[in-house]
């Protein structure tokens, strides 16, 4: 179950602190369904995230493919997590705020 908040034209999803493969697999379908059905912008809130797995990095790419970077962004990344996205080279693909 996603922790969702709606603000005007945006849906913010607050992520759990430890995004391991199992958790990522559990939320993937819900996230993709949301991406396919909403007309609102979507942001993922990484404020509490301390670890992100390979699976979730790829989920982020799939969300970006569906929503485009106009409507999808990653927010409040800690330096540790921002570095992960930079090493993967995803800063060139995703909208990191």
């Amino acid at each position: 179950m996603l922790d969702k908040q709606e603000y005007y034209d945006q849906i913010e999803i607050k992520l759990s602190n430890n995004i391991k493969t199992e958790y990522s697999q559990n939320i993937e379908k819900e996230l993709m369904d949301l991406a396919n059905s909403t007309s609102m912008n979507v942001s993922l809130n990484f404020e509490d995230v301390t670890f992100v797995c390979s699976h979730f990095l790829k989920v982020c790419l799939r969300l970006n493919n569906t929503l485009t970077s106009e409507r999808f962004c990653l927010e409040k990344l800690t330096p540790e997590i921002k570095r992960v996205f930079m090493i993967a080279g995803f800063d060139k693909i995703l909208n990191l705020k």
Partner: protein
Amino acid sequence: MKPEVAEILFNANTAAAVFSQYNQDHVDRIVKAVYHVAFDNRIILAEMAVEETGLGRLEDKVMKNVVASQMVYYNIRNQKTVGIISEDEDKGIIEIAQPLGPIFAIIPITNPTSTAIYKILISLKTRNPIIVHPHRRAAKCTIEAARICYEAAMNEDAPEDCIQWVTDFSREDTQQVMAHNHVALILATGGSGLVNAAYSSGTPAIGVGAGNVPVFIDKSADVDYAIKEILESKLFDNGTICASEQAVVIQKDMEEKVKESFKKHGAYIMNADEIEKVSKVAFNQEKQAMNGDIVGKSAQFIAEHAGLNIPIDTKLLLAQLRDVGENVPLSSEILAPILALYIEDDFDKAVNRCIELNFYGGVGHTASIYSNNDDVIKQFSLLMNAGRIVVNMPSSQGAVGLTSKLDPSLTLGCGTGGKNITTDNITAKHLLNIQRIARRRDDFLFVRFDKKKYFDNNYSAEMLDKEFYSNI
């Protein structure tokens, strides 16, 4: 680039990003699990390697897997490879270990499963994802080694795709991967073609190719012991280790004793006609390289192919030679139980012969000496251009760290002579970027020195030295 090749690179880069978050405890758990599974499968993997490649000997392939798993693990298990690894308060330097990124590992046919295990262990220990590139004639066993290691790593929550392997790679695929900016380092062990391609790719590479190991038996040595050890080394996996002895050099007055000992331990001393026949099957004159068909084969197999009639208990073919170079095929590296023997008039001529052999295709690799005279050992070593000079021990086993305290390794650095940046045995420490936090530590002599003097044309280095050091 083919989509499947691009996907491998993408996955490796993603794995590198995820791996960067792992702490030392977690890394060590993964490495331990991989060591366990590799060690537990040492025999089956050795069987697969011998069956698939037709090279070497089962018991020695098992021992290579032991070196690659147990010895390498014991050597690296307590090393700090994550985060802050050292702090020196006096110098104000703190060292931080960071991973390199994806490693492209080229695996040779001669040591397929062992090299794969060893490269996987040192890569995981340093949080670097690894892409294993097997030799096409050793693909099945290499991939099986990689697969079981990956399974064990994943059971300890390693990053997805931290170990990948490639199959049916064309030369073009290999070149594209080597040159890709997602690959941080190429660990190339194998034939000179691939090693040279790795160096030409523009990506940092540690490549190890040929050796040509001379062994000097000094008069002070225990000759029979030396010959026994040389055979143990040269016959190890039918001579497929590039640190195995290629030529024995002795002084004339030891000839009888040495030849007797060789015969006693199972060597067959070839005559000139037999040397010529064996040279033809062992060496490809056109390519100026050993013939791949005899690599890792037994003395009996080679003799049969050369049309030699040798005693049934022959283990090694010995060729007494007089020269070194292109016209003397057996003076170059042959990874099989064929050994050259040089008999020289005196000490200087014997050492000169070793230098010739060393410089004929073996610069930077390995040299060997049997001596009970420390001065001779040092004198000999100073004259060799070799990353490791092994003393009174089998060269194959000594160089890889089985019978010495050198770092256990299946990739032996050859220094600049071998186009390497290091003469070390390659291990985990070579797969790290070390960052240094440097705090201010002024040199008190420099601080109190009148800097205006630097701008005085008459102020000389001699005056400077006096001022800096006269009162220390």
